[in-house]
């Protein structure tokens, strides 16, 4: 028997929550002013697309009702006592993160090189090979600067990853005040039109997955 932990909130009780992973009912375990959203399973649930979306739906339902700190899929604890102990030990940290993400959502922005804009340099010499390896990084950094100048001022925090794969120079997550989401999206759409070298895809609002770690202050 194991408990799958979806999220933590400090504003219980939540209204009705959708069924969780494998259709299991979701309920809350409260302690120290915090509540964990959990469901019970015989064994740790298998991670697949369906269970991932079920997990997401529970967190988003909670997010619609209160500030929630989303857990990474697959976070399990043995039983109710273990959840209570965990909440007790981490209460200060969890409360701090909840305060940071309250009334905020995560918006993801991904840039891919516009079609035909991926350069495949011809290399003959060793130096040309090295330069060809450096060039994508330079271009990705320049694009990251451009995106940052446009979107960072509209967000409370941002996290960037460069060249997750060769076709995707910039993958970014922004922590955006919920009330400013429309403004942010409008600016992202404008930026997408301005950028000739890359196409932007913007998705959200998501739970603040990228901003719940202790290194995201």
């Amino acid at each position, binding site marked *: 028997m194991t408990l799958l932990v979806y999220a933590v909130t400090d504003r219980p009780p939540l209204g009705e929550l959708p069924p969780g992973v494998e259709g299991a009912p979701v309920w809350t375990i409260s302690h120290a002013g915090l509540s964990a959203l959990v469901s019970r399973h015989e064994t740790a649930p298998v991670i697949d697309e369906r269970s991932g979306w079920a997990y997401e739906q529970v967190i988003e339902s909670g997010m619609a009702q209160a500030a929630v700190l989303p857990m990474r899929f697959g976070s399990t604890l043995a039983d109710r006592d273990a959840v209570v102990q965990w909440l007790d030990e981490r209460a200060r940290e969890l409360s701090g993160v909840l305060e940071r993400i309250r009334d905020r959502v995560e*918006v993801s922005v991904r840039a891919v090189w516009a079609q035909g804009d991926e350069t495949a340099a011809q290399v003959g010499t*060793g*130096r040309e*090979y090295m330069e060809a390896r450096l060039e994508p*990084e330079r271009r990705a950094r320049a694009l990251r600067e451009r995106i940052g100048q446009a979107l960072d001022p509209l967000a409370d925090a941002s996290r960037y990853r460069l060249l997750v794969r060769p076709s995707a120079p910039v993958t970014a997550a922004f922590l955006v005040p919920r009330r400013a989401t429309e403004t942010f999206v409008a600016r*992202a*759409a404008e930026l997408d039109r301005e950028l000739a070298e890359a196409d932007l*895809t913007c*998705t959200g609002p998501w739970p603040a997955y990228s901003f719940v770690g202790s290194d995201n202050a």
Partner: protein
Amino acid sequence: MSDKLLVGDAGPVAAEDLTRLESALSRRIAADPEGVEKGLAQLVLTIIELLRQLMERQAVHRMEAGNLTDEQIERLGQTFMALAERMQELKAAFGLRDEDLNLNLGPLGDLL
């Protein structure tokens, strides 16, 4: 997912992501007698490819920082070029694709 799209066209990107997700979820080292050689080759080549890319990236950063002479840049470039070619040959020999030499590390992202 479509109701989450705020800007842009997610079609090709989402399709690529789903393919990667399927691949990450189903990826296992084959342990059956027929597949064990390929499975081991996949594991070993993944580690070699990781080291190759790390060394290459470090060398590129040293070049960018101006810490290498022209001669060193040329020699390193030739070496990495030869290594990349050799890796392509080894992948072809074991019937492996680029995406086979990658591992999903969950919270840490992809290995390569």
